[in-house]
């Protein structure tokens, strides 16, 4: 990718010499920096939202009987087998101005003008959260599942409230799972280009869209490679950060 990114674009894709570093200076143009920051923000919000929904869900499942745990885990994985485009299109039907949610709110008289939900960054975040939620729930569930039940019971016996035992026992011990969940959701969200296109209406451009468009539409492979390189660098930094923090957490535990 590094090699590609310093070449010159061919007329119909492909690459030519001479070698130059123009693409890197072009990539630091304020428009593109804005796109990269915006992508980080959207992917970050997706990861946090997934955590807020995923952790309580995983906690709830881990406290159930073995039989119900299996049933619920299967219920979470099952929709994942549906093609993700189909699941994304479902949000189009739900969110659009003439869609089910807006029609319902209008019929019960709560609003008289449709709320604009589709083709916004919010729609992109919601769509990706839905898409990647199982990737958050499963590692947290696995971590919570491994915690010795006696530890929480001991905390109760020693006078901890439910909240305190959660804060001092369950969350720290589940931390490696939480970190993995965050990475699992953040990484594919950052590179996603289908959801921004469908639910963002092509107006919310993320770094994945830039890479795709440079290769397929603009046929500027070197510039596309430059963004792919930037994307990869961000991910490498994040993953090494995650493994570092994870190790520290394990040592402390």
């Amino acid at each position, binding site marked *: 990718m590094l090699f590609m990114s310093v070449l010159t674009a061919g007329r119909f894709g492909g690459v030519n010499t001479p070698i130059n570093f123009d693409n890197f200076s072009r990539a630091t143009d304020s428009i593109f920096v804005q796109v990269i920051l915006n992508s980080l923000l959207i992917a970050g919000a997706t990861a946090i939202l997934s955590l807020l929904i995923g952790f309580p869900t995983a906690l709830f499942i881990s406290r159930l009987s073995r039989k119900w745990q299996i049933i619920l885990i299967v219920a979470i994985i099952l929709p994942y087998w549906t093609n993700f485009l189909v699941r994304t299109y479902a949000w189009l039907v739900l969110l659009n101005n*003439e869609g089910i949610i807006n029609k319902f709110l209008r019929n019960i008289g709560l609003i008289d003008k449709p709320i604009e939900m589709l083709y916004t960054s919010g729609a992109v975040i919601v769509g990706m959260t839905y898409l990647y939620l199982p990737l958050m729930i499963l590692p947290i569930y696995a971590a919570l599942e491994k915690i010795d039940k006696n530890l929480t019971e001991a905390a109760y016996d020693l006078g901890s409230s439910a909240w305190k035992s959660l804060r001092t026992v369950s969350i720290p011990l589940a931390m490696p799972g939480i970190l993995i969940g965050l990475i699992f959701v953040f990484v594919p969200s950052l590179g996603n280009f289908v959801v921004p296109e469908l639910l963002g209406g092509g107006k919310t451009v993320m770094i994945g869209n830039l890479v795709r468009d*440079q290769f397929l539409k603009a046929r500027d492979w070197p510039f596309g490679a430059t963004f792919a390189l930037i994307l990869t660098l961000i991910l490498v930094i994040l993953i090494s950060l995650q493994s570092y923090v994870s190790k520290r957490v394990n040592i402390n535990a």
Partner: protein
Amino acid sequence: MTKVGKYKFSAAVVAAGALLLSACGGSSNNATSASVDPNVDITTQKLVISNWAGYYPEDLPAKVKAAIGVDITITNHATNEEVMGKLTASDDSGVDIAFVSGQYAQALASAGKIVNFDKSAIPNLANLYPEVADLAYDKGTNYSAPYAWGTTGICYRSDLIDFTPDSWNDLLNPKDSVKGKTTMLATERWLALPAMKLLGYSMNTTNADEIAKAKEQLVKTKPTLLAYDDTAFYTKLVSGEAVLTEAWDGWCNYGIAENPNIKFVIPKEGSDLWADTMVVLSSSKNKEAAHAFINYILQPDVHAWVANNILYKVPNKAATESLDPALATSYPNMGLTPAELLKGEVVLDLGTDSKLYTDLATEVTSS
């Protein structure tokens, strides 16, 4: 990335680049000449044809097999860019006939990727409107046989807006009542078209100042849009999500078919004239069958059948005259005369300057 690495040294790409550099801006015809051997039994040849999805009657392969005895396989592409990538990435893409827009046929000819027809094998070229031979992307119809032609305009819901749009200004600087309910095409040249026409420039301009002014207008327009949409804007019109959209005439018809309140107008500042054409690849080993296929499509009854099916105008005089006049009543664009269409500016290949437009599109959509 290994695949990309392989292409890097593709002689064809380098050669194409070198050719285009020497042409620099303008394009010259470097198409190879086709040698069609009339004694070849075409029924032993098979054709691979790349066309836009939904841009041909579904039973076309069966009809072709019955009429000229050639087995055809149709692969679909979504955009010109996609098929161009496929055709130029290697010396032999495996495609015999490609359907591409006129300016891309021009680019392929200048890169030597397609053949000049052996016109004796396509006598049905005579059925085309004589004006077709003057279209600037291929004067004389040497390497591209036009399949459909049309223009770009505004497709709108007459029952949901309180004015009759007649200007690109209605799209680019929308009234408050339609803000957030308009869409524009995302393909680079058509993304730029409304702004170029509103500002009084050529849609083929390569003047940096004019492109910068168009960019300024388009960046200003972006927040007022519902979405950039090349493919599903007519469904947004049908559902009422969008009320005013930039549209190719034939696409608008898919909306009109579902809701007669949907109307099409060519803005007063003018628009384009595009043509989608059939080209034969130089790498094809089935050139005889390829010529026979093109000749078959240009047959008046076949081309009329295609027009009825895809609701785009065909540049075939005999075929157009045989169409049911009721079609033009339901779909007004089908009644446009060649003279009306020719008022539009022909979309040209800009050679290496095409990059100005790809950069414009990238910068507008990322802003």
